[in-house]
C-alpha cells in the first residue's frame, strides 16, 4: 500500500505540491495525469526518494520513505529518458544493476528475447538508438519482480511492436497482483491500461476514479475529451 499524507513541496518560490493526500491500497494500474506543472513527476520522485518533500509523509507498506532506502527494493522504476554510462555494454549493465539490487541470480533472457535485444547484448550503450535504450530500460524495470512498479511516460521512444510488448508486460504484472503507477500523455494508452485515474491539478488531487466515472462526471462520451475537459479548467 502506498500512502501519501499531506505532501507539500516547493522549488524555490514555486509551490508544486500543495497537500497531496492519496492512498493506493489495491492492486492494479493507476494512471497519474494532469497538466504540465501539476506535480506528477514531483509526486513520483517523492515516492522514489529522489525529491525530498518539505512536509508530509509517504509510507510504503507502513514504512516511511524519509531517510530510508531499503523500501526501494520493492519498487521498479522506469524513467522517462534513461542515460546510461556510454562505455558499458548492455550485458555489463545488466550484471551491474543485478548486483546492485542483490539479485545476481535472476535470469533476464526471457525479457531480452521478447524485446529483441539479443543481438545488442555486446554493444556499448553509447551506440544504441533511443528506442533500443528504452527497451533496455524496460528489462531493468520488469526484471526484478517488484510489488510496486512506477512507469514515467513509458511509451516514449517505443516502436509499435515494443508498445504491444509493454502492454503485455503490464498485464502480466497486473495478473501477479502488482500495483502499477504510470504517467502518460497518450490518452489511448491510459484508457487501455488504467484501472483508475488520479488527476492532479495545481498540486492537489482533483479527481480520482475510473475512466468511466470520469466520462460520466464531465459528461463526455470520449475519454480524451473528458480529460481535455478537466484540463480546460487550468486554461480558464
Amino acid at each position, binding site marked *: 500500500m502506498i500512502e501519501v499524507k499531506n505532501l507539500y513541496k516547493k522549488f524555490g518560490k514555486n509551490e508544486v505540491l500543495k497537500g497531496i493526500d492519496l492512498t493506493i491500497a489495491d492492486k492494479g494500474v493507476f494512471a497519474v495525469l494532469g497538466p504540465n506543472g501539476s506535480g506528477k513527476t514531483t509526486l513520483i*520522485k517523492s515516492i*522514489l526518494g*529522489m*525529491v525530498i518533500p518539505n512536509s508530509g509523509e509517504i509510507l510504503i507498506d507502513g514504512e516511511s520513505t524519509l531517510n530510508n532506502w531499503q*523500501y*526501494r527494493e520493492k519498487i521498479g522504476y522506469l524513467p522517462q529518458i*534513461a*542515460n546510461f554510462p556510454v562505455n558499458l555494454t548492455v550485458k555489463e549493465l545488466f550484471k551491474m544493476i543485478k548486483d*546492485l539490487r542483490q539479485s545476481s541470480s535472476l535470469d533476464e533472457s526471457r525479457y531480452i528475447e521478447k524485446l529483441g535485444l539479443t543481438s545488442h547484448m555486446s554493444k556499448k550503450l553509447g551506440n544504441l538508438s533511443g528506442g533500443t535504450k528504452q527497451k533496455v530500460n524496460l528489462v531493468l524495470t520488469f526484471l526484478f519482480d517488484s510489488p510496486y512498479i512506477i512507469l514515467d511516460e513509458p511509451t516514449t521512444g517505443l516502436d509499435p511492436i515494443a508498445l504491444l510488448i509493454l502492454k503485455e508486460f503490464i498485464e502480466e504484472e497486473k495478473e501477479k497482483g502488482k500495483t502499477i503507477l504510470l504517467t502518460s500523455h497518450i490518452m489511448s494508452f491510459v484508457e487501455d491500461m488504467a484501472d483508475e485515474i488520479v488527476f492532479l491539478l495545481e498540486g492537489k488531487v482533483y479527481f480520482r476514479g475510473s475512466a468511466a466515472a470520469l466520462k460520466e462526471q464531465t459528461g463526455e462520451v470520449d475519454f480524451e475529451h473528458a480529460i481535455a475537459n478537466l484540463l480546460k479548467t487550468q486554461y480558464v
Partner: protein
Amino acid sequence: MLFINPSLSKAILTLMNVIIMLVPLIGTIFGVMYYYNSKEFTELLLALPIKRSSIFIGQYLGVAISLSLSLTLGLGIPFIIYGLFQSPDIWEFSQLLLLGTFLSFIFSGISYVVALVNENRIKGFSYAILIWLFMAIIYDGLFLISLVMFDEYPLDKFSLIASVFNPIDLSRIMMLLKLDISALLGYTGAVFKKFFGSNLGSMISMGILVLWTVVPIFILKYKSSKKDF
C-alpha cells in the same frame, strides 16, 4: 630529468614544484567533469535500493583513488627503475607521493562538492577552477602583499597560521623541510623548521591535511542527502 641531473634529491624538488601545481588542477577538473558527466546515470541509481551516500562517496573515491594511483605508478615506476630502493632519498620520494595523494583527494573532493551544489555546469566548473587558482596562485600573492605591508610587525605566527589554510602551501612547506632546503626560507624558514620540523609540528600538519580531506567528504555526504534530483 634523471638523465640530466643524476641527483635524486634535486629531481624530487623539481617534481614537487610541478606536482604541487598540477595535481590539484587535475583533481579539480576530473572531479567536476566526472560529476556532471555521470549526473543522469546517478539519477537512475538513486531509484535503486542504495544509500545516497554510498553512491556519491563511491563516485568521489573512484576519481580520487584512480588519480592517486596514476600519480603513484606514473612517478614510482621510473624512479624504481632508476634505482630508488638503493637510494637514501626514498623517504623524501615517499613523502612526495603521499603529499600528491593527499592533494588529489583534497581537490577532487572540493570540486565534487562544488559540482554537487551548482546545477549550472558552467558555474560549477568555473567556481571549481577559481578555487584552484586561488589556492595555487592568488593566495601566495595575498600572503606576500600582507608580508610587505606589515613588515614592521613580527609575522612568524601569522605566516604559520596562514600557511595552514592552504593545503598547497602546507604541502610545499612540508616537502621543503623534508628536503632540508629550508635554509633558503630565511627567518620564516627557521620559524617553520622550528614548528613543522619537530615531531609535534609534522603530526599537526599531517592532521590538518587529513582535515582538508575529510571535511569535504562530510559536506558531500550532508549536501547529497538533502538535494532534490
